[in-house]
């Protein structure tokens, strides 16, 4: 949609010492790749392309294998997300209680689709499956905070709150 940021994941990103240490620690354990990718995403918020080259070299696995795994799992992101990450639950309980209306409203107000990031880099929109608090359906999670029992009328207020919040990391 119109407000979607076009992104390409080509920046060179330096590998952090912590990450390097983690990879060394896991290097000889069988089945380490997914755990390493989790750590990469934890470190950068997504999986930077240049880091996959480092991981390939350090773990001595082909890049193709890394991308094969990376693209199979929904959890891994290959694009850098916006400053605020909005996750709308699309599990059954939330769907029955109007999760799709909330998603629609968010798409409308942000002018982006699912998995999009706004041009100003303020918001990314994601759909997730059941966050395990179905008792609060419908549920939206913003930067890890759970907002339960919300309606499409709450959307504007939520966006305003997060837009105005100082960035935690920057």
């Amino acid at each position: 949609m119109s407000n979607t940021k076009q992104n390409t994941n080509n920046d060179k990103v330096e590998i952090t010492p912590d990450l390097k240490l983690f990879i060394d620690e896991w290097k000889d354990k069988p089945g380490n790749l997914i755990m390493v990718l989790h750590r990469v995403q934890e470190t950068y918020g997504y999986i930077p392309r240049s880091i996959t080259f480092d991981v390939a070299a350090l773990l001595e696995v082909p890049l193709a294998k890394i991308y094969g795994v990376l693209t199979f799992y929904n959890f891994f992101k290959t694009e850098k997300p916006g400053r605020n990450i909005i996750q709308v639950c699309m599990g059954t309980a939330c769907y029955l209680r109007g999760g799709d209306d909330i998603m629609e409203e968010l798409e409308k107000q942000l002018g982006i689709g699912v998995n999009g990031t706004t041009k100003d880099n303020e918001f990314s929109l994601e759909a997730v499956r059941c966050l395990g608090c179905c008792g609060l359906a419908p549920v939206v999670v913003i930067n890890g905070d759970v907002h339960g029992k919300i309606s499409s009328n709450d959307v504007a207020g939520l966006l305003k709150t997060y837009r105005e919040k100082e960035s935690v990391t920057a």
Partner: protein
Amino acid sequence: MAFKNYLLVCGGTACDSSKGIELTDELRKEIDAAGLKDDVQIVRTGCLGFCEKGPIVKVLPEDTFYVSVKPEDAKELVQEHLVKGRIVDRLLYNHEQGKSLVTVEGIDFYQKQFRIVLRNCGVIDPDKIDDYIARDGYAGLEKALFEMTPEQVIDEVSRSGLRGRGGAGFPTGKKWSFAAAQPKGEKYMVCNADEGDPGAYMDRSTLEGDPHSVLEAMAIAGYAIGASKGYIYIRAEYPLAIRRLETAIEAAREYGLLGEKILNSDFDFDIELRLGAGAFVCGEETALLASIEGNRGMPRPRPPFPAVKGLWDKPTVINNVETLANIPVIISKGADWFNKIGTADTRGTKVFALTGKVNNTGLIEVPMGTTLREIIFEIGGGIKDGREFKAAQTGGPSGGIIPREFLDTPIDFGSLSKIGSIMGSGGLIVMDDTDCIIDIAKFYLEFTVDESCGKCSPCRIGGRKLQNYLSRISDGRGQLKDIENMQKISEAMTRASLCGLGQTASNPVQSSLKYFMDEYLEHINDRKCRAGKCKKLITYTITDKCIGCTVCTRHCPVAAITGTVKEKHVINQARCIKCGICYEKCKFDAITRS
């Protein structure tokens, strides 16, 4: 040190996100301010089940049960209850109805429940191993190691009649005996905590509320089958459960309950966590193993079964979280205690995540054989907003839609499969007359199509076809022959798919065709959706109640409404995009939806 009072504050995910953390801080502050620091102990427990009414605070020893407690209520609760010994009536359950209930005695939600799996959830602090031990924790492991041979452990589990709670209901004792029968050497014990059914959170709550019960069970299983290494494969989407497990594993190692020479016996066993990464198919056991091995999570044909050739080609037992949580109790109380609970088909209890259109949503545990009616109308308190029950779905995307006529079916593995559904892992979703069966079936198919790994064509192509037919029908473009085609595709998928995902993906379609054919026909022949859910089939019309206020004209995003002030307005049906805004905005109920 004994305290005068204990405040059990729910620290489950749902309560935490309803300001449960701020509430705990406030309570702590107020307790300090009142000088009660040495008399009152705050315990942050796991989910008490009644998340709908969270955050929940229970005061011991009186057992007072406070619901929907907000941080602002902390002062009154401390001052009134703890200082003056007076119950805060306005925070009790059912206060608004003038029928306040002081303890869980009498609250419908807790009647008929029987807790084995959730025995410690909402009772102990999951981060304190001593709390678990104080409630007979690790007694089962001790008994197994020092009083029983591995064969006797397996025999006990077999005699208990326990069947796997991950969905398929395979007898647990039998599964263990297959792996035990393999030649000695490296073997693995894996716990499946991938919980993929969207709309279910039984395993999450168990792990968050009582992580040691799963660790203890894995050690017992390891001893029984001869494995010294265990893995817990857990969804990355469950950060709190992961943290609690990490804490629990550390504590168990420190106490000599995991690691080398457990409790000074000759048995070594340790556990590692492996994170899932958002793929439903990885709940399937062979895909799960591929994922632990660091590969794409694709299923492979069985046999060979994992018990023979599993993780890194070694014999491996995979059990679900809930299955495992039963084990310590079975060992310490004995098979004969356990196998008196439940039905002949399925012994024990089942945990359900009761959600959808019921008044009391939450996490419940009932003996097998409880009927859907008891669960939905007694524990669940009936349908929300006094509406009408339409159907229930068990087993999530792999399950079937169950109509009203089967409300009195006693639930167990056998009875549910007889009526075209499955037990599944414990999602129980209730629908009312505003839910459209075709829309629900479409929702599930969208899910399975999205999650199909794509390895085999019946699932990859068949699922997409079914989804397309359902979309067509819901858009009002369906044809009668679509029904027959859907039936054929469903059957092919069930028979020819490689793994359980594809084999069961058509269940929502097959069961809805069986029990709700009239709704399909209505959508196809009359282009009508009686629930008003299928947007393209709705028509909005303005009736004579219209006084010509022009509100609707101003809000319609596509200028489909015309009319002059103080005269009746009309909707141009060809332009209308059925957004429903006019319907919501009209203050005179002059717009109808059909």
